[in-house]
C-alpha cells in the first residue's frame, strides 16, 4: 500500500505518494515539489513547514526524506550521483526522471556517508 503525503494550505492541497516525490526545493515563501513523473507543484509554504508536514505523516521507520541545508529536501531512494568536489547531486529514477542539484560540500559528504552506511 502506497504511503501518501498531503501538503495542504488554506487554499490548496497536494496529495502525492511519498515514493513519487523526487525532491522539494525552497523558493522563498514557496516550495516546489518535483515528482518522478516530471510534474512540479508550487505550494505557498516554506520548506520548513513542508518538512514538518512530511515528518508528521511519515510512518515510523520511513527515513527516505532528507533535508539538505536550507533549500532542499530529497527522497534518498532516487540518489543517483554525488560529486562532493563539484557540489553536484543527481536524483534519478533510472528511467525518465532526472534532476541535477547543488549542495554544500560538507552536506554532500554527510549524505554520501549516510548512503554508504
Amino acid at each position, binding site marked *: 500500500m502506497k504511503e501518501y503525503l498531503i501538503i495542504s494550505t*488554506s*487554499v490548496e492541497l497536494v496529495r502525492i505518494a511519498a515514493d513519487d516525490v523526487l525532491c522539494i526545493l525552497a*523558493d*522563498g*515563501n*514557496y516550495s*516546489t515539489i518535483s515528482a518522478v513523473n516530471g510534474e512540479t507543484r*508550487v505550494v*505557498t*509554504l*516554506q520548506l*520548513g*513547514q513542508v*518538512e*514538518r508536514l*512530511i*515528518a*508528521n*505523516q*511519515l510512518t*515510523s*521507520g*520511513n*527515513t*527516505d*526524506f*532528507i*533535508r*539538505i*541545508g*536550507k533549500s532542499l*529536501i530529497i527522497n534518498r531512494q532516487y540518489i543517483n550521483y554525488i560529486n562532493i568536489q563539484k557540489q553536484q547531486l543527481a536524483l534519478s529514477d533510472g528511467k525518465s526522471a532526472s534532476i541535477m542539484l547543488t*549542495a*554544500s560540500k*560538507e*552536506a554532500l559528504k*554527510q*549524505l554520501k556517508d*549516510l548512503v554508504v552506511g
Partner: protein
Amino acid sequence: MTNGQEINEDEIRIIGGGGKKKRSRRLWWLWLLLALAMVAVGVLVVVLQPKNQTEPLDETPVTEQQTVDAEPAITWLDNVDNSQSAEIVVLDTAVDSMQLQVLIPINTTPELYIGKLSDSDSDILLATMAADIRRDNGKIVGAYVYAGEPLSWGLSKRGYCAIFDGRMTIGVADNSPLFEQATEQGGFFFRQYAAVDNGAAVENNPENAAPRRALCVMDGRYCIVACADRVMMNDFSKALARLGVEEAVYLVGGSAHGWWRDGEGRVNHFIEGNDRPYNKKYMNYIVFRAN
C-alpha cells in the same frame, strides 16, 4: 521530532523516521548522567563546606538590574511637524537590539500601483512592494483591487489594506467588506500577513529570517517600518508591538524592490543595490505621492 527547525547549509537531517529518535534518547541519558553528577558534586560541596562560610559576608542588598524601555516611538511621531511640505520623515530606532527604520509620509496620498515602477517619477516619495506574487503563475496572492477593478480573489492572508480617496485602512479579518467597497468606489485593496492587531503581535507561520517591512498605524499616523537585517517574522511583529504600533500588515520583504526620496530628492533603496524591479506583470506597490 527534528523537523522544521533551523538548519545550516552544511547540515543534513533525516525527516521523521527513527534515526533522530535514537539520537535524542542517547542525549536524554547523557543529560540524566550529567544532572546526577552535578547533584552529587553539589551534595559533596555542601557536606564538606565549613559552617562559618555559609553565613553571609555582606548584607548589602543586591540591586536588581532593571530594563528601561526606550522612549515610546509615539513621542517622536508627535514631534513630526505636519505642516511641512510633502516629504518622508525617516527615524531610526531599535527595539531589543533590532534596528528599525520608521518612514513617515507627510502630506502624501497613498495608492497602489501595478507594473514596472521607475524611481525617476519624482512625484512618488515612497514606493514599496505590497502584495505577494506567486512564483509559479506570476499572479497576485489573495484578494486585490486596483482602482476599483478586482484582479485577484481569495483569502490567503488575514491582514488587509484598503485605500479610498487617499484614506487608508489597515486591519485583520477573514472577510472584509472593504474589498467590495473598493470595487464599488474605485478604491484599492490588498491582502498580506497581519503583523499587529489592536497593539498585539500576530503570530505567523513563515519561519525564515529575512529583511522585513510593514505598513503600520502608530498614534493614528501611517508609517512604514523596515528592518534591513534578517529577522524572523514573529520577532519583527513583537518589535512593532513594542514600538507602539497599533495595527500593521506586512509588505513584501526580503530583497523586494522599494525606495524613498529624501528631502533633497535623492532616492534611497530599502535594500542597497536593489534598484531594479522584477519583470512581472503583476508587480505591485503601495506608493505615496506628494500632494
